[in-house]
């Protein structure tokens, strides 16, 4: 018997979901503890909080992917051991970050080394800023023997769920994403086009900040990139496995 096509499988699945035979799955059976959330890192100095941006992202992920999320965006200090309960973390800033203590640096390094993921989001929308300088100093202390490098276009981050051609956020100043890799894993991503600014929405559901120069289409691309970042944080280089690459190439999507 030949396998069902993907579209047919989805149709069948949708039909099955609508029927009473299968019934609706209780997606909250295990509670919220192990569900995917996002923690904001509160650093002295120029870090800011945009919980609505991450809530929006978690909602988008829940709607679009099979990942079970909980709209929970705690804000904690880097030296707080509670950081280890949230393997996906974001650090958003628009001003100079004050230097962290050695203990905080050590904890943050351990967090990233043992499986945590950190997205650093530059909200300034500027090519040069005090935030950028302080981030580079912070990364230099975290990984003295590693350096930030622009992610190649075939990195799994750009294909973990959506196929991303250009990494944009609220602005589109930079055509690349910088990152630090440990072996085959990339636990730290530094994004300079203000991703959280594109994700933020007000109570009316409209974007808090205008996206320039591409408007709502640019915001849509930013959301897709944000989904990919969370998907990558969970599946790492899964999309670089041979089976996936071969299949995507066969279908002409790579």
């Amino acid at each position, binding site marked *: *018997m030949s*396998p069902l*096509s*993907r*579209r047919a*499988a*989805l149709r*069948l*699945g*949708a039909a*099955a*979901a609508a029927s009473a035979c299968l019934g609706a*799955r209780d997606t*909250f*059976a*295990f*509670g919220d*503890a*192990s*569900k*995917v959330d996002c923690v904001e890192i509160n650093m002295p100095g120029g870090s800011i909080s945009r919980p609505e941006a991450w809530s929006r992202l978690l909602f*988008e992920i829940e*709607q*679009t*992917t*099979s*990942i*079970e999320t909980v709209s929970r965006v705690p804000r904690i200090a880097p030296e707080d*051991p509670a*950081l*280890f*309960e949230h*393997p996906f973390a974001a650090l958003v800033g628009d001003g100079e970050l004050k230097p962290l203590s050695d203990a905080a640096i050590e*904890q943050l390094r*351990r*967090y990233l*080394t*043992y*499986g*945590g993921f950190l997205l650093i989001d530059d909200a300034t929308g500027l090519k040069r800023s005090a935030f950028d300088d302080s981030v580079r100093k912070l990364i230099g202390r975290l990984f003295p023997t590693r350096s930030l490098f622009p992610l190649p276009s075939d990195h799994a981050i750009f*294909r973990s*769920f*959506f*196929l991303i051609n250009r990494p944009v956020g609220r602005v589109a100043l930079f055509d690349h994403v910088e990152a630090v890799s440990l*072996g*085959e894993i990339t636990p730290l991503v530094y994004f300079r086009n203000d991703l959280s600014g594109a994700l933020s929405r007000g109570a009316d559901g409209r974007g808090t900040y205008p996206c320039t120069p591409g408007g709502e289409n640019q915001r849509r691309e930013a959301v*897709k990139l944000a989904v990919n970042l969370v*998907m990558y*944080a*969970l*599946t*790492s280089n*899964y*999309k670089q*496995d041979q*089976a996936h690459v071969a*299949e*995507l190439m066969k*279908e002409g*999507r790579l």
Partner: protein
Amino acid sequence: MSLWWWLGGEVGPDAALTFTTPGWLFGLAAAAAVVTLFVTWRDARRFPPVGVELLCLALALSVACFAAAGPVWVEQAGHREPPRTVLLIDDSRSMGVLEAGEPRGARALAEVMDRVPSDRLEVFRFGRELTAGGEPSFEQGSTDLAQALRGVSERYAGERLAGVIVLTDGLDRGGMRARYTNEDSPEPPRLPGPLTVYQAGVPGELDDVSVVSVNAGGFGFMHSPFTLDVTLAAPGFEGRNVPVSLTQDGRLLAQRDVALGQDGAGKVNFSVKPNKSGRFVYEVSVPVWEGDAVPGNNTMPVAVRVVRDRLRVLQVCGSPSFDQKFLRLFLKQDPAVDLVSFFILRTHEDTRSSYDEKELSLIKFPYEQLFAEDLASFDLVIFQNFDYRPYFQELAGELLGNVATFVKEGGAFVMIGGDRSFDEGDYQGTPISEILPVTLGAGTPRTDSASFQPRLTGPGRVHPVTRLLGDATENEALWGRLSALDGLNLSAGPAPGSAVLLSHPTLRTQKGEPMPVLAVREVGRGRTMALLGDSTWRWIMAEAALGQGNQAYLRFWKNTMRWLVKDPEGDRVQVAAARENFLLGEDVPLSVRVRDVGFGGVEGAVIEGSAQSGGEVVTFDTVTDKTGEALIRLPAEHRGPWRVKVKATSAGGGALGEGETVYAVTDRDPELDELSPDAAFLALLAQSVSGTHYTPGAYGPPQLDAEAGRLVREARETPLWAAPLWPTLIGVLTSLSWWLRRRRGLR
């Protein structure tokens, strides 16, 4: 008084004069003579004439110097002896094979002795080495013709023999035969006389079926077929069909009929696909027919080490999660694991966003290929929070049944909890429920979302999966402080034959038993595990938060993998034989190694073991040394595949584990692997040295060199230095010189 008396003896003209005094001593004597002559001349020159006096003195001193040089007259003499003939008799066991009721070697020797000259005949026997004299017994274990011919050349160096006569069947195992067979121009042996080869053994008079070789390449990979190439030789059975059997550890694996060619040769191969790693004895055998000359060569055992190329793991996950993330990282970073992951990134419930399919990097879940075609290529299948229903649909029974069969045939399966697993995944009543270590059908509710600290059970305290630390107390303490888990899939309790390793501290099944959290089970030849939670990732991050790393998590999953796939490398008790095959009568060295959970050696572990083959059992016991090792020697007294089992206990009596291995004992004689005489080799050998090759029934006289022989040399020495002539001459000349001196008035 003859002239010869004055020279000290009779001397002939055909001789040579040699001097025996060292040069320095002769030089000293000559110098003394010159000084004496000079002093005499200096004193006498005042009263001339001095010529005659000095002449006499100079002659006397010259004679003295000649005598002091130690002259010896050496005369060479000798005579030629009649030539010797050497007979080399192949004394190996192949020469003892019966032909027409008589050992082929004895039969041929009787005929050869009628043809070789008995005068000055020197007889040697050879097998691996050359032995002078003695009656051939045809009991030597090998044949090295090159070594025998070399030995003769060295022994008779410088002598020309009348002939070198060899009696052999040509079944040389020292390399010469291989060179003559494989090389175009092999270097011929250097011989001290003409070679005559008398071939023993008549092709066609021997009935013998033998397994000549079994080539397995030494090792194979798990789940990959390897081939055993078998070569048969059966003189006397040409054109017949011979059944060939392949057994493993005494168990029949396959049997094939082989049609022998007109030369009695046959080939067959067996394809074997091992599903377990370790060392195994495969034995190829053919029946012993009536009249079979050597029944011992009808069986050939070969030990094959089966290794894992890499552990093939299929991880199927219903939803990306932190638990899936950390398990994938663990599996992906292990170089011994070949991981194939399939994560369901989107379900039919996740289509509410309006993204075009071309924007997605998703691929079709190849469930049918994985679970209908490729399943057997994996060692371990992990269902991690995976709901099969939207994909398998009407194929669910078949595909899940394949997974159950895969396990029963030796595969390993793990189900990890979540809101798509166990009862939540509607696995009750499917073939999967038959292999799980827990019984499904918990009723309502099907999950519990409260955080809890799993509790180590009695079996969990000793099971290798949950032994994270070597010390039992420390191990229990570690489990007590590991991060709590977030929720639990409920079950009806452990399945029959399973072991619960971790249980919930308060929840009970409907039967009142502690609710299983982690359970294991052996199903057929495979193993399964149920982990009814989805938050073991916290064992990494919580430990990392305390600065204690991720060792607990890594060790738990490493233990799990090793136990599930029965990896012998992961066994804490290992026993190994020094090699795979042993001959009857040899010692079998066995090493036993006992390690703790951290794989450090355990000193003082008590080892009790047994080696068994058929009805034969040998028991032994020992204690490990400070490195955790012990060496045992067992006698190889009975042929066959032997399985060794050992059990190790600590000094306090606690079980440390068990191990086993196999080895083969054979009475197979390599000398008797092949019995048909090699006439072609013997003919080539004789031709290469311009010798003669005789086959049975056509024996002729040996090739002899009539002019051969040995010149015996003798030397006669006459010591001229001791001849009476020299002191006489010296005395006369010095007296004359003294008299002339006195006449001139000198003193």
